[in-house]
């Protein structure tokens, strides 16, 4: 059970959220006709074992799309920010303990 500290609603269980995948891929402009750019945006993933910037939407709350920085090895969440604003680091909270990577 991830606990995501929603900037609007406070810490909530992740099953209130909808996952939106890798937030590090850049969506080409809507009228960008570059095939390669779209191919990479839609299909190619770094898929790191480690820090991962990703989208989550608080569907059962404020419905905001968020950008969450999470370690895919141990699910420690380093930051949560509204996607509409540039992400900022938040101080570690009691609710989402940071842990050293386990391997």
């Amino acid at each position, binding site marked *: 059970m991830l606990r995501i500290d929603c900037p609007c609603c406070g*810490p909530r269980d992740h099953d209130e959220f909808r996952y939106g995948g890798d937030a590090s891929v850049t969506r080409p402009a809507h*009228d960008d006709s570059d095939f390669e750019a779209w191919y990479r945006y839609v299909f190619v993933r770094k898929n790191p074992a480690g820090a991962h910037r990703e989208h989550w*939407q608080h569907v059962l709350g404020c419905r905001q799309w968020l950008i969450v920085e999470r370690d895919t090895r141990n699910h420690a969440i380093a930051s949560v920010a509204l*996607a509409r604003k540039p992400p900022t680091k938040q101080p570690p909270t009691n609710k989402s*303990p*940071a842990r050293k990577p*386990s391997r």
Partner: protein
Amino acid sequence: MSSNSKRLAEGGRIDRGRPLEFSFDGSKLTGFQGDTLASALLANGVSLVGRSFKYHRPRGIFSAGAEEPNALVTLGTGGRREPNLPATMLELADGMGAESQNRWPSLAFDVQSLNSLFAPFLSAGFYYKTFMGPTRRAWMFYEHFIRKAAGLGKAAIEPDPDRYEVRHAFADVAIVGGGPAGLSAARAAANAGARVALIEQDFEFGGQILSERPGSEAAAWLQAVEAELEGFGDVSLMARTTAVGLYDGNVLGLVERRDDAQAVGQARQAFTILRAGAIVFAGGAIERPLVFSNNDRPGVMLASAVRTYVNRFAVLPGRKAVVATTNDGAWRTAFDLAAAGAQVTLADLRATLAPALQAEASRLGIAVHAGTHIADLRGGRAVMAARLAGAGGETEVDCDLVCVSGGWSPTVHLTSQLGVKPVYREDIDGFVPGPFAAGQFGAGSVVGGFTTAEAIETGHRAGIGAASYCGKTKPVPAALELQSAKLPAAAFRNIPAARGKAFVDIQMDVTAGDIALAHREGYESVEHLKRYTTLGMGTDQGKTSNFPALSAMAALRGATIPETGTTTFRPPYTPVAIGALAGRAIGRHFKPIRRTPMHDWHIANGADMLEVGLWMRPYFYRGAGRDVNEAYVAEMRFVREAAGLMDISTLGKIDVQGPDAATLLDRVYANGFAKLPVGRARYGVMLRDDGIVFDDGTTTRLGEQRFFMTTSTAKAADVTSRLEFLLDTAWRDLRVAVSSVTDEWAAMSVAGPRSRQVLAAAFPALDLSNEALPHMGVIEGEFDGRALRIIRLSYSGERAYEVYVGASAGEAAWGRLVEVGEPFGLRPYGVEALGALRVEKGHVAGPEIDGRTTLDDLGLGRMVGKRSGFVGDVLRRRPALGEPNRQRLVGLKCLEAGKRLSGGAILFKQGQTRQGHGRGRITSVTYSPTLGAYVGLALLAGDVAMGEEVVAVHRMKNEAVRAHVVSPVFLDPEGERLHG
């Protein structure tokens, strides 16, 4: 055996004033309030309680806790039958009826105990090496018998009649374990101002203190701390509750047993999801057995368990006891046994023993053998004698009880579940949790503090630390000390290698020999060992066997224990009823259905309801026909010839507003929306980013900056989220807000040649003329004080209107339409007719928009023309998506009288061999009353031309039907019915 023959005359924490009747395999027995089933069985002299998994060897009660490998019983009958319950964890209740397991015909005479004779051939992994012939399917024959022999208890196949519940809880500090460490931590954290949850699996708090002699200083300590904790308003004392799982975000899964609750209709178990600011792990340690020949005989017990039975339950399990140990702890068992009147022999593996212990032993008349271990046991269904081996040779000692202690294993399970590897500590010869995460703390035996004094001290510090982590830092009074508990620290040793049938995992019947065999065959990593021998796979999850097995493998490999490694523990810590995890989300509470505002009308008016993506929708109305096949054709006729009324409230509805709303729609739909005039609606198709069709629907422009979008029922949530995603992450410059209004509006479609007359009669204030409300037009008004919106859209191909009205007025509006529509022949129709009408008209829906089709596949490419810049535009141009032979939408008309087309039939060209995937398939079919024939939509390869004949093969229905490939629009291709 006489009743309570092994019960001591006095002492214990049982309530002798409250006797409880229970039965075991039909024998009526008596115990007391405060007993466990295990203590009550022992008190009654029941030594044989089960048969082992593989060899069906007789087994007795081995422990006094969750680690119990042997004493597994079945409780209950019918749907309440529950197998594999450790008797040590069952709080005795009046009328409890327990049965032993894995024996036939009876516990005493078990036919499968013959397995022992074949033991030489039933070595670890024997089944991998045999049962292979004579034929390729031979295993199917052998497996039948192996399956019957395996398994422990028998589960019910009737539904479970009892209730469970799931609770959500929060705490600053959660403390796992209510022994001295946990109690001390709770006291400190509560004093610091934290909201505390103290979790204890036993029905009493106290942990090891409960096993101290009655009247001891420890008992007084326990009473004082419990009283203090009860005084705090913010401390939840959760007894009978096991922390079974630790999950990310400091979330604990707790199972509370309320075995007496089912009688009064309450949940029998509650699963609590506890979100904690900080967690203190104070779950104690589990004593290790010793590995020697026949160490599984009934009467062999963990030394600490014996002490628990003697002191807590006032049961003397044996009168002639041998205590075999590698450490100081078990000496206390010897002392307490002797004090309770048993004759005790103590064999300590260590050559040098503490003088203080020896003095006490001598005072109590205990025969002490230093440098001695048990080599073998004699006895079958009960132990009779122990053969002791030491420097001075071997001696045999008669006994009816053998107490063993091979040291202690801290409970590292919960932290290990989260991926924290346990680390080995030489000084305690055991594993402790790896580095704790922020907000996690350990106390007591978990971190190697085995004495009560250490537990209290480390608990106190962990409690302060945990509270402080949560920002609770009120001053805390000093720990309540318990001086008497300061025993010398335990010393630990490796034990000599065993011979004969020496069990390491008693439940799974894994012997020292099996471990040696696994090593010999190269299964030497701990995970291979576990998987090859089934070590630790039993209901006890190897709580007592894990470490002895590791040390045995380490010795065989000539490696250290850290080099050998350890396994990962998996949740749950103890087995959990699946019902407890589901709680109330069963029956109609599992994925609750959704009802439209007109639901009750449908039910009252003979609708046969169909569930579609959790929505309940009218399938057909029984007034139209006896069954669906008769009814849907009749309902189609109403629509084609007069007027029909359909509940379409399930459509997704999205309000789109803002200065850039038109721009948003222009980008998300493949066809253009920027130039849609105010007051007009348009059919639109959305693509996924990869260029495949995602969803279709209509959007109506209500104002310059305001649109009303509908989506398919299935995709409503996905489309909303997708729009929000694009606006929040990609197109942040667009000034648009989207909001789902699906539940705010009731929606109904009035379709058919007389639809306008019906509407005009229902809403006389509105001008519904073709000029005022042409096809694809919209007007807004009011009904019953609620907003009314009529959009002229057609799915059926007839003149049709979608009527949207505020949800609370839905039923009234529907009623009005039914009432005024009757003279015009208006009748309600269901989804089967709806689907049939759209097939006749060649409209695509879910079966065609199957997540693999493109605009061109569906014949929708022309809507897009040369537009670009919409979602999915670039990747829809991928080469394979434009290949000429791709399957595309066509119509099929059945060519054979008296035959029908079937959905899911595979299409072959005339003369083509009827095997493989064919040239396509039928996606949707209907009988067309207009054409008087079966027609269908199909996805068919581009190399089959219009007008060609194909064969539709439905193997499962033994059908092969000829059909013509035609345009998918079977009805009114010019759209004349829609207009005017």
